[in-house]
């Protein structure tokens, strides 16, 4: 196969893209309606693969026949949906097991009657607690109790903006306040609470990310479309840079006018 570049075969490049669009426009239109859900599925998959990279063995739980029932909103009982179990034997021979849920409701660390539903929840147990005191009717709410919560992630299919990033700290404070304290932590494989965003950080949001990642046990991950995120998650060096419940992340050096921008283009950035 001849490898060329779009510059050397410009007309052919555009023609190939047009042919691709014409050939697959039905499939594209059909699946494009589910892009938001696909993004959340993609993030869920990244967390599963993160645990795999950390040596955990994955097992699907609660399949309905051969159907993985994905919980795509906060409603519904946990027992009606599928999830993954991750198991690992640690260096001391102790078996560590966690359960990875999607859209599972979690109890606040401060108030037993306050709940919120992060997109991805890692819990110590798959036995959900129940209450009939949550809704105005006697409808039951199933949730992960605060004692069973290991970590959580929020997936946002959006371009990051400051309010979104700062709001995440509110969820962090409510669910995992220990991730905001400077007390010494024990080493842990578990990913620190993370905000996973499909868009890309700009300069102001990068600053917020750096600031929070240096202060708290938290990850802000951007550019999460599949190929790039795979590079991020699964290269050894990147994996080690992520914050876990036992250590803070290694923030990327903040953009400086003099170092990262080639050929004196720093002023262009300021003018945009």
């Amino acid at each position, binding site marked *: 196969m001849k490898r060329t570049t779009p510059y050397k075969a410009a007309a052919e490049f555009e023609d190939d893209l047009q042919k691709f669009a014409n050939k697959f*426009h039905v499939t594209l239109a059909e699946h494009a309606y589910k892009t938001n859900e696909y993004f959340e599925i993609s993030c869920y998959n990244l967390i599963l693969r993160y645990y795999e990279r950390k040596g955990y063995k994955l097992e699907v739980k609660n399949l309905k026949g051969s159907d993985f029932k994905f919980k795509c909103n906060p409603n519904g009982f946990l027992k009606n949906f599928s999830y993954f179990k991750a198991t690992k034997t640690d260096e001391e021979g102790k078996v560590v097991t966690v359960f990875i849920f999607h859209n599972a409701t979690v109890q606040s660390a401060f108030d037993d009657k306050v709940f919120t539903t992060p997109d991805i929840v890692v819990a110590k147990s798959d036995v959900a607690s129940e209450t009939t005191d949550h809704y105005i009717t006697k409808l039951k709410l199933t949730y992960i109790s605060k004692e069973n919560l290991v970590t959580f992630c929020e997936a946002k299919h959006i371009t990051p903006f400051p309010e979104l990033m700062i709001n995440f700290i509110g969820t962090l404070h409510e669910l995992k306040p220990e991730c905001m304290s400077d007390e010494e932590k024990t080493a842990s494989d578990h990913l620190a609470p993370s905000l996973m965003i499909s868009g890309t950080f700009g300069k102001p949001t990068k600053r917020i990310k750096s600031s929070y990642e240096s202060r708290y046990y938290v990850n802000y991950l951007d550019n999460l479309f599949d190929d790039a995120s795979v590079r991020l998650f699964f290269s050894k060096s990147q994996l080690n840079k992520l914050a876990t419940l036992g250590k803070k992340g290694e923030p990327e050096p903040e953009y400086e006018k003099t170092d990262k921008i080639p050929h004196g*283009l720093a002023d262009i950035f300021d003018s945009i």
Partner: protein
Amino acid sequence: MEQSTSLIKILTYKLPGAITIPLFTEYNNRLREIAQIWSRENSSYRVLKEHEPVILSLLAMSLFYRHVLGHMQGANAFYKTLKQHCGSQQECSISIGRTVLDYKQQRRLEALMISFNQIQDKYQIYPAFYEFSETAQFLKNCKDLLTLREYETDDTI
């Protein structure tokens, strides 16, 4: 410029407004920024100006990937993870609300991704190309691509 505007329209033909509106907004904003960068006399990216139609095609392709295809690829990757862990059950499916991503649908997504990957491979466009936040970063990726050479590989089995 008109030709490449039509390319983004072709790529997003019949896609829902929830996707096309932000995609077109970003496309138009980035076009303005590219024009602004090129208008600077000391800009090292002016070398790309003579390849304007290509730059606009690359921009259309990048945004199409970031807004549409990347997430489909993510869902497809989850399907593969699921299949790997389903044990003896060869054919599994994913229910997302009322919609079901089954083996047949997954094969269609897979075909779409293979076809797109072939285009990427042919033109030496790698996933890192889509990683940019500032438009200048996108132009830097385009400039890196400009320096690549053509070569032929023997793909016969």
